């Protein structure tokens, strides 16, 4: 009698998500895998003759570099959002009274359109822009700085856009931390730094991993910020895939690129979850 109740509940919790994932994710995914083994017809349509040429094509240094560049951008973004986001989340959890306010203040910018916000940055960083204006007037510089359309500008844009995706999971994790552990560690004579490394960090690892995944993964495919802030000077995997669908009309190649991108991302997620977690001896997910 008890067993039956368990099964119903089990079905109720697992059912919706399994159904949703299988129906709306697995099925479209199978379609993409299928297309990736097809060929592009002369007029741009899909010709249903199986081939692996789309995959072998990727072995050239051109495409490897595209993948590599995208991963590097995503990685650097993740590192910076973590480095700046962790202290922020840590200090913010101390302000218990303003919990709601802080969460809302972090999210408020991201409820407005990302394109408009990026244009805001362009106005600030451009040669005739606000920042140069202020620096010139105060005499700090003599010639305007060329800040925009550079790797640095792209990084500012990426970090800016991905910031809440790191901070919110971190905040949750740190918030849950029982301060008693920290006090105990201090009582036992450990320095603040040692406490942080041996106690705080491992205990907040789930939040760090969640934040890293939620920043890294979307960043690999994010191309409109490198396009806007970087002048579209670098070909990233997001652009490349988009071009296959919208300019070159090579859907099979685009599909193959996407499968490889998904594959690489999943491996990297596995890295974050298993290795980071294992190293610090905590169950992460």
């Amino acid at each position, binding site marked *: 009698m008890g067993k039956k109740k368990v099964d119903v509940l089990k079905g109720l919790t697992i059912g919706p998500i399994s159904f949703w994932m299988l129906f709306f994710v697995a099925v479209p995914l199978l379609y993409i895998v299928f297309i990736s083994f097809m060929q592009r017809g002369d007029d741009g349509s899909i010709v249903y003759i199986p081939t692996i040429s789309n995959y072998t094509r990727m072995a050239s240094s051109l495409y490897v570099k595209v993948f590599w560049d995208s991963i590097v951008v995503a990685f650097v973004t993740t590192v910076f959002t973590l480095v700046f986001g962790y202290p922020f989340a840590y200090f913010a959890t101390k302000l218990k009274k303003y919990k709601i306010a802080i969460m809302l203040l972090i999210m408020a910018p991201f409820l407005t359109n990302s394109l408009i916000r990026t244009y805001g940055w*362009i106005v600030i960083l451009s040669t005739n822009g606000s920042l140069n204006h202020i620096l010139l007037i105060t005499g700090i510089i003599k010639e305007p700085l060329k800040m925009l*359309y550079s790797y640095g500008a792209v990084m500012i844009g990426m970090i800016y856009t991905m910031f809440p995706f790191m901070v919110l999971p971190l905040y949750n994790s740190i918030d849950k931390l029982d301060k008693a552990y920290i006090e105990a560690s201090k009582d036992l004579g450990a320095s603040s730094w040692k406490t942080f490394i041996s106690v705080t960090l491992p205990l907040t690892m789930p939040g760090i991993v969640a934040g890293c995944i939620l920043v890294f993964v979307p960043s690999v495919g994010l191309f409109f910020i490198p396009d806007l802030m970087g*002048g579209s000077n670098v070909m990233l995997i997001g652009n490349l895939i988009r071009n296959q669908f919208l300019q070159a009309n090579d859907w099979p190649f685009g599909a193959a690129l996407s499968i490889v991108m998904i594959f690489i991302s999943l491996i990297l997620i596995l890295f974050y979850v298993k290795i980071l977690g294992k190293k610090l001896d905590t169950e992460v997910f």
Partner: protein
Amino acid sequence: MLKKRFKALIILLTVSLMGSTLVGCSKSNTAKTNTEKIVNIYTWANYVPDTVVKGFEKSTGIKVNYSNFSTNEEMLAKLQAAKGGQYDVIICADYMVQIMAKQTNVLLKPIDTSAIANYKNLDKAYLSQYYDKTNKYSVPYSLGSQMIVYNPDKVKIDIKGISDLWDPSLKGSEVLLEDSRSVIGMALTKLGYSINETDPAKLAEAKAELKKLRANVKVFDADTPMTSLINGDTNIGVMWGSQASAALKGNSKFKIVYPKEGMQFETDNLVIPVKAPHQQNAEKFINYVLDGKVSSEVTTSIEYINVTTAAKEFMPQSVLDNKAIYVPNEEFTKAKHLEDAGSASKDYDLIWSEFKQQ
């Protein structure tokens, strides 16, 4: 208290699912009849000015659903999946009309010119073009071209055409359109070839030529190339007429040059998809925008060339004097038109990817 919260969550979930289904169903049910007073327009945002849309609604009582796309290719992908239905009037580029008409399952409905009284207003010079020789599917809407804009304070050499963009003094100062055909087309033009070249040997030459250009390019931007010019981050660029006009509004000292090798032109056309749900309303809409006064309103607002003869008496002198919009007739003799590259698209894409990588 928490029991209430839990109950609330369950109710919320059920209601949301039901709600979205109902909203979806009701909306789709209303769209089923052909006799309703609705027309679905699909084109770039603000490409049909708000005043024109409202004017149409007022004079015909037909409501306009204005949907937007950012690129022609998005529109094609969407239309293919919708099997040529859902939308009534689409405004898109000429080469796209050519692509759509060539397909085995044609996505366009032939235009019944007898149902469009104002069809006679069209300037015959813009009909019978390469992309639709009999104008079976398309009605011209506006015409634009790519030109060079530069800042004379910063650019010290004489700019006469596309070839000048290769000058070493322009290092790191150019903005080009984020458009493989436009940029590769520039190299082909410099070499004296057609911008629709498919010969692999000639394309290889273009690729080598492009390599020499790379260091000069600071920004690629198809949407707002005038931004970096106005902001001082670039000093010279290639862009469409309306964008050039915006650049001059930002800094009146800028100069416009019509490339001596000839400009790339694009005619945007009104087309009706093959399964358009409201064909008569579509025809009424096309008729409306071909009216002289309305047509003038359109092209003044979007800053492109007008394609009707009837609009001439309504056009403000300031528009006719705007060098970014009104190009002299001799330019038309040198005009270049983009065509679908067909199987060479793959080659173009490869050249483009490698060019960007440098």
